[in-house]
């Protein structure tokens, strides 16, 4: 447990992505099976021990610590697992005991491994879970106790996504990340076969019979002024939902998000919608009020979909109010055959044949945009004021389905962003290499009473040179400090671009921007001439 606890500790304090990768990769190379596999499972949140709950830990602590002192401590620390790890009484100093008995240190007690911990936690029942956890806590120091409780309760909070952990694996063993992604969902912890393959001890595994995730094919942004030959590229709408992959293999069905996370539990209606083995690529959306052109295409805006995202369980009302469906872009496998090597045209033919056989209220086909002329396409794109349309996708007709972003194959051509002139209100220091700069800015627009209300926050879009200037501005125009936040004089106008804007109850202005970024510093513009809330309201769709 020591090396894992040390890894967790380092990850918590490491902000650089590359350093995190290096730390995990180093751990994976140093630590033997199956410990490293369980560590990966913990980092990717793939472990679950239902009998172990925070309330149980709290009750356990009550046998050692006065309830009031625990409560005061918990308030201060802000995390039950950490509070418990710090409060648990230290065991007797083993080195002393052993010294007295004349035994060699390290020989007498075997170091508690993460595998042993997982094994014991997996065997826990509601009746004996507290006893098992107590026994494990007794064998660990404060850092070890923290790692144990985080692992047992879930929610590591070490700033490592599942994707990052997989990337670290790829880096450690110098294997393609796409393969790691692909195999990941086919193998259960502690992933012995994956490590054997990584270390070159076995062949590349095959999991065609399992419902595993295929890494998505992604698109490059189409640069301004570039025109493509539509004889070679097919055009279709880019819908504003979330990209998903729906996989059925044998009797098992999985729904994966773009990062390969399983999100099926939030969308049970889709898990039961297939009766044939296949892998579909599409846009997950919610049925809405006639947006998307005609009744058949109707989809609600991204806001509606957000009601469904991230839910562990879904109520009947949710299912009725926000029914989910998938707009199909592609078919990657059918009846066990991998279609990915086929050119897009052939996959599209299969998809068009397949779509009508699927449940119509759960699936529809993403239509191609019928135009031969790029200029006409540009006009159609500009004219598309539909909330569910994000832009246009251009796909090379002869291209196979390959993982990641490959030059020349797929392009996304987003609608021009909306912009607004806003006034900087607050600034906050950034992270990592930006830690000494005020690089995160909140900005606002005017309401009818001549007050500025915050409408968004952005930390990108500017050059390093502009960042230095903005940092200087913040330092020279601070009127108030709230911890890491500085309030500035309301004099600087920022031109902010955003993909869309929605109603929001979270903000006083009643508005929330999607993907806001700063495109220009308008030193020339007086703050009084910045945009009004009402103007932004008119852009809500």
């Amino acid at each position, binding site marked *: 447990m020591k090396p894992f606890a040390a890894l967790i500790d380092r990850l918590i*304090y490491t902000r650089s992505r590359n350093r995190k990768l290096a730390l995990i990769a180093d751990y994976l190379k140093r630590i033997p099976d199956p410990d490293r596999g369980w560590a990966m499972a913990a980092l990717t949140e793939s472990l679950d021990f239902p009998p172990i709950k925070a309330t149980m830990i709290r009750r356990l602590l009550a046998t050692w610590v006065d309830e*009031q002192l625990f409560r*005061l*401590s918990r308030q*201060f620390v*802000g995390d039950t697992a950490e509070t418990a790890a710090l409060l648990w009484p230290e065991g007797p100093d083993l080195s002393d005991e052993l010294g007295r008995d004349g035994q060699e240190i390290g020989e007498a007690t075997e170091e508690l491994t993460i595998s042993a911990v997982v094994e014991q936690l997996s065997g826990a029942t509601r009746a004996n879970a507290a006893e098992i956890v107590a026994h494990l806590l007794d064998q660990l120091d404060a850092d070890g106790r923290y790692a144990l409780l985080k692992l047992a309760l879930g929610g590591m909070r070490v700033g490592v996504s599942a994707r990052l952990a997989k990337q670290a694996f790829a880096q450690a063993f110098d294997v393609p990340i796409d393969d790691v992604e692909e195999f990941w969902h086919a193998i259960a912890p502690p992933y012995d076969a994956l490590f054997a393959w990584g270390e070159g001890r076995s062949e590349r595994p095959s999991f065609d019979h399992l419902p595993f995730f295929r890494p998505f094919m992604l698109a490059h942004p189409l640069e301004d002024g570039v025109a493509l030959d539509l004889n070679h590229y097919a055009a279709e709408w880019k819908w504003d939902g979330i990209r998903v992959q729906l996989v059925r293999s044998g009797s098992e069905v999985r729904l994966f998000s773009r990062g390969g996370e399983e999100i099926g539990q939030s969308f049970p209606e889709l898990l039961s919608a297939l009766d044939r083995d296949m892998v579909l690529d599409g846009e997950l959306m919610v049925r809405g009020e006639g947006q998307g052109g005609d009744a058949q295409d109707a989809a609600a805006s991204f806001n509606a979909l957000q009601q469904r995202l991230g839910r562990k369980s879904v109520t009947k009302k949710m299912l009725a109010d926000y029914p989910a469906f998938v707009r199909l872009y592609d078919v990657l496998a059918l009846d066990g055959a991998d279609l990915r090597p086929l050119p897009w045209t052939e996959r599209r033919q299969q998809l068009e044949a397949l779509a009508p056989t699927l449940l119509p209220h759960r699936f529809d086909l993403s239509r191609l945009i019928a135009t031969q002329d790029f200029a006409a396409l540009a006009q159609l794109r500009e004219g598309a004021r539909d909330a569910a349309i994000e832009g246009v996708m251009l796909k090379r007709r002869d291209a196979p389905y390959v993982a990641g972003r490959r030059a020349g194959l797929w392009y996304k051509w987003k609608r021009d962003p909306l912009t607004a002139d806003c006034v900087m209100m607050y600034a906050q220091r950034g992270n990592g290499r930006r830690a000494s700069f005020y690089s995160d800015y909140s900005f606002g627009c005017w309401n009818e009473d001549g007050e500025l209300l915050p409408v968004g926050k952005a930390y990108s879009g500017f050059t390093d040179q502009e960042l230095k200037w903005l940092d200087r501005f913040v330092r020279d125009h601070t009127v108030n400090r709230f911890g890491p936040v500085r309030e500035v004089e309301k004099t600087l106008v920022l031109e902010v671009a955003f993909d869309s804007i929605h109603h929001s109850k979270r903000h006083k202005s009643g508005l929330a921007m999607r993907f806001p970024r700063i495109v220009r510093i308008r030193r020339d513009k007086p703050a009084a001439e910045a945009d009004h809330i009402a103007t932004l309201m008119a852009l809500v769709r």
Partner: protein
Amino acid sequence: MLLVHSASRWLESHPHGLYVRPADVWIDPARPVAFAAITHGHADHARSGHGAVFATPETLAIMALRYGVDVDSSDNAAFAYSEGFTRGGVEFRFHPAGHVLGSAQISMIYRGERVVVTGDYKRRADPTCKAFEVVPCDIFITEATFGLPVFRHPPTGDEIQKLITAAAAEPERCVLVGAYALGKAQRVIAELRQAGWHQPIYLHGAMERMCALYQDYGIELGALRRVADTEKAEMAGQIILAPPSALHDRWSRRLPDPVTAMASGWMRVRQRARQRMVELPLILSDHADWDELTQTIAEVNPEECWITHGSEDGLIRWCELHQRKARALHLIGRDVEGEGETAIAEYEVRTPEKAKG
């Protein structure tokens, strides 16, 4: 005004300090007074502008350095440990508190009743100051900065070793340690020397004068250099000390890709360390941890505990559970979040230019 204890009508707790009425002396007052007895030199205890200051020689020297207090003035008086003075029938005495150089507990005897004010203190060994002394008393006025059972400082040697390991682990980077300019900085340096780190240690300009003062008092700190006088490349693999407020400031841009460390008891709590954007938390404090606080109360074994700045609630609860009489005193200006030293760091950072001359 508030009479805090019927048995001690002569000692009054005011928001800005403790007032010893028969002697007309304030202890660590937060605003200028005619007569002030000072426990130690941190800015939340030692302020400028008093008529006369009574303190240990080291504390007076620190106040002279910071506020230009005139050490030789006949108004002020310096007292070595276990020495003191009598004024208005109250017998004052200074005893080591183990917090920083010159730090003292102040004991007072008036009409047979004995009160001890700890100021800030710790119990573990510190090569830069004299160890805390248990002084039996009737009323024990203790700090409670870390008055919750989650605060248990690990062995100092382990934390220093973490620092040395980090400096060696990434030789192309430096380790930048945030440490308060008075006390913590010198302690970290002295501990590093004891642990066998003999390379020069590089300092933010604001720390220089205080280190020199410690050296004048015979505390070995080894070779110290100014960051401002050093080439960036020379500091790779080295240990740099700066006040916490300089850690993420533009000042740090002159360092080679620093690993940001912070030496403080608050580093025990992970999310706190994260909030301060610390990569290498060093749990090193000049305040007593929970075990030291409770052990000290047990050893001093007073009739009654008065608990000041920090987590009073936690320590009062402990007293309650152990059938000890206790109450909270609410003094203002005690900088608990900054471990009593933020104000100084700010002060020091603002005057580096002056420090040069």
